[in-house]
């Protein structure tokens, strides 16, 4: 925006988790993690409830101890340090503002604890409040603010110390859809300006896709995939990732290869394929092609149609498995009770029938050039 923005300077630090494990009693929440968040990078940790993503964040923050392993900030071991010694700040899901303090007091509390003089604190509060558009609310208490304003105060409180590491624990989940969208854009902008190493936990794939430099997908405390949003979408490493990303998510059908063709469980032929064995076949709803007329391709009795205006989502049954088809924008599919569809080979993803991991030899454009 203007010159004052430059007054927030952070020295971003890389975060490395070296063989980190976490157990609560006998419950092994995180079996073993070995990952690195690059300096200045915006990483989103994505996963279903109970996958260990919040625990991971709390361990980075120092609010939870690691059971085993090391956490390094910029090469320095911090796993045994208190939160205040680690130099990271956190934005909580329910904002966690101090209800008895004003906005200014909330934001400057960490500076006060650190022993900064009042004039210095006030100057810093002014800068941060200016960045977040909170200038008019400095004397209010959190109870007098709207949800979005509280969220900004929470963000202000986190960045005012110029932390090298900035942690977010599902910060947008309490906001309504419009506000969530706006705040998402502001967060991306803020990250560009501040440049702190940011770890952002969410279960919302839209937040992950739009905010992240890289997405870490966790499942039962283990890394399913850690890659750019593009790669995660176009080259999912497992059925879990494939089903988790995309709205509606990728369709998964059991299939078998006999060495020459690939068949669905009811014997219908998808296409020619050279490998033998049991597979799980994945295809994104937007890649399914609806044949004009009802002849050729795979038989797909229609169960349900959702017309969204710009396009439609059609739920069909193929070989006894529910499959969703997204029609192209502006595309009109006749209101038939049965459709004939084809799966273009270049759009197919193949996963191992047992492990669900992507097969490296899996073919098709989607799994090769990432586009």
């Amino acid at each position: 925006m203007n010159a004052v923005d430059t007054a927030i300077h952070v020295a971003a630090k890389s975060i490395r988790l070296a063989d980190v494990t976490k157990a609560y009693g006998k419950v092994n929440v995180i079996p073993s993690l070995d990952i690195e968040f690059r300096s200045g990078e915006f990483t989103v940790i994505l996963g279903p409830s109970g996958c260990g993503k919040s625990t991971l964040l709390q361990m980075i923050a120092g609010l939870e101890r690691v059971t085993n392993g090391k956490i390094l900030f910029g090469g320095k071991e911090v796993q045994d340090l208190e939160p205040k010694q680690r130099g990271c700040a956190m934005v909580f899901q329910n904002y966690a503002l101090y209800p008895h303090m004003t906005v200014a007091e909330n934001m400057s509390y960490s500076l006060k604890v650190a022993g900064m003089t009042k004039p210095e604190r006030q100057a810093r509060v002014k800068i941060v409040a200016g960045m977040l558009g909170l200038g008019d609310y400095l004397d209010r208490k959190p109870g007098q603010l709207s949800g979005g304003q509280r969220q900004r105060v929470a963000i202000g409180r986190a960045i005012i110390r110029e932390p090298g590491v900035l942690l977010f624990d599902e910060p947008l989940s309490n906001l309504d859809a419009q506000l969530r969208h706006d705040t998402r854009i502001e967060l991306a902008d803020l990250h560009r300006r501040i440049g702190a190493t940011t770890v952002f936990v969410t279960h919302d794939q839209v937040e992950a896709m739009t905010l992240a430099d890289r997405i870490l997908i966790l499942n039962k405390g283990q890394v399913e995939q850690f890659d750019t949003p593009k790669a995660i979408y176009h080259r999912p490493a497992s059925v879990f990732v494939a089903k988790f990303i995309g709205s509606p998510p990728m369709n998964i059908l059991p299939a078998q290869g006999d060495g020459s063709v690939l068949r669905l469980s009811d014997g219908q032929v998808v296409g020619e394929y050279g490998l033998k064995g049991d597979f799980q076949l994945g295809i994104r709803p937007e890649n399914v092609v609806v044949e004009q007329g009802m002849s050729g391709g795979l038989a797909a009795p229609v169960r349900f149609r959702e017309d969204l205006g710009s396009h439609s989502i059609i739920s069909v049954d193929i070989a006894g498995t529910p499959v969703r088809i997204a029609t192209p924008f502006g595309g009109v599919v006749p209101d038939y009770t049965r459709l004939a569809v084809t799966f273009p080979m270049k759009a197919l993803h193949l996963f191992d029938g047992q492990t669900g991991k992507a097969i490296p030899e899996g073919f098709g454009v989607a799994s090769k050039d990432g586009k």
Partner: protein
Amino acid sequence: MFLGSTMFRHRWLPIFLVAPLAVLVFLFFYAPVFQAFYWSFFLERPFGGGSEYVGWDNFARVLSDPEFWKASGRTVLFMATASSLAVLVPLILAIAADRAVRMSLPARNILVWPKGIAGASIGLVFSFVFNPFVGVLAPLNSLFPGIWNPSFDGFDAYISLIVAHVWGNIPFNFVILLAGLRAIPHTIIQAGAMDGAGPWRRILDVQLPLIMPQLFLTLVLEFTESVTSAFALIDTITKGGPGGATTLLVYKIYLDGFSSYDLSGASTQTAILMVFFILVATLQFVLLGRHINYER
């Protein structure tokens, strides 16, 4: 009625439900208090049978009695020490229990038990506990003869009363304060930790301000409770002695009224005590009540 007709469709039901308690409170609290105010302007015969209106004479007599002022002084001292300790000790226990120190789970339950014990029983137990010959401090006496003897030393007797009072009032205040601490969202404490505040700093800057309503409640109740409930303890532990050292106003009123049969004097002192209570409570609301307004 404050409650709308949707909740109590029958008009008389709420009154009916409240009536038993209201009757009790009226019979055993309001009626005697009004009676005391009334009698404080009359000279009553000790065994009934007529009275004489004397205006402010009773007040003049009571207020010029040095014993009244001594008892008042002791009362204020007891109120200040006993009630602040009866809030402070449970506060420390509650903070410890909230921080989940070792054994806090059993402690949380055990600490509540004294609430179920009547004041007189507590007094009786403590008169044994503090007995200089067989009590817990008896070994101290055998080491330093005469160092602890509540039946001769007024200060020791005073301490006995305060300890017994604090012990009996730990449960209620503990429960209230612990509930207050528990109601603070965990993430606010975590936010404090992220902001660099250590445990003590967080107690001071975050937890204590957030349990102000509970602290205020316990203090207000404690101020009046410490004065009134002291009666049972005094009567069972010290009988106001030694040499009147533990004769608080409530006990003096009892002695004057029911041992010396000075009904008018006792009534007058009761009236004065009531006015004093009302003033204290008002003052507390004005001074403390202002600082506890915030929205969660």
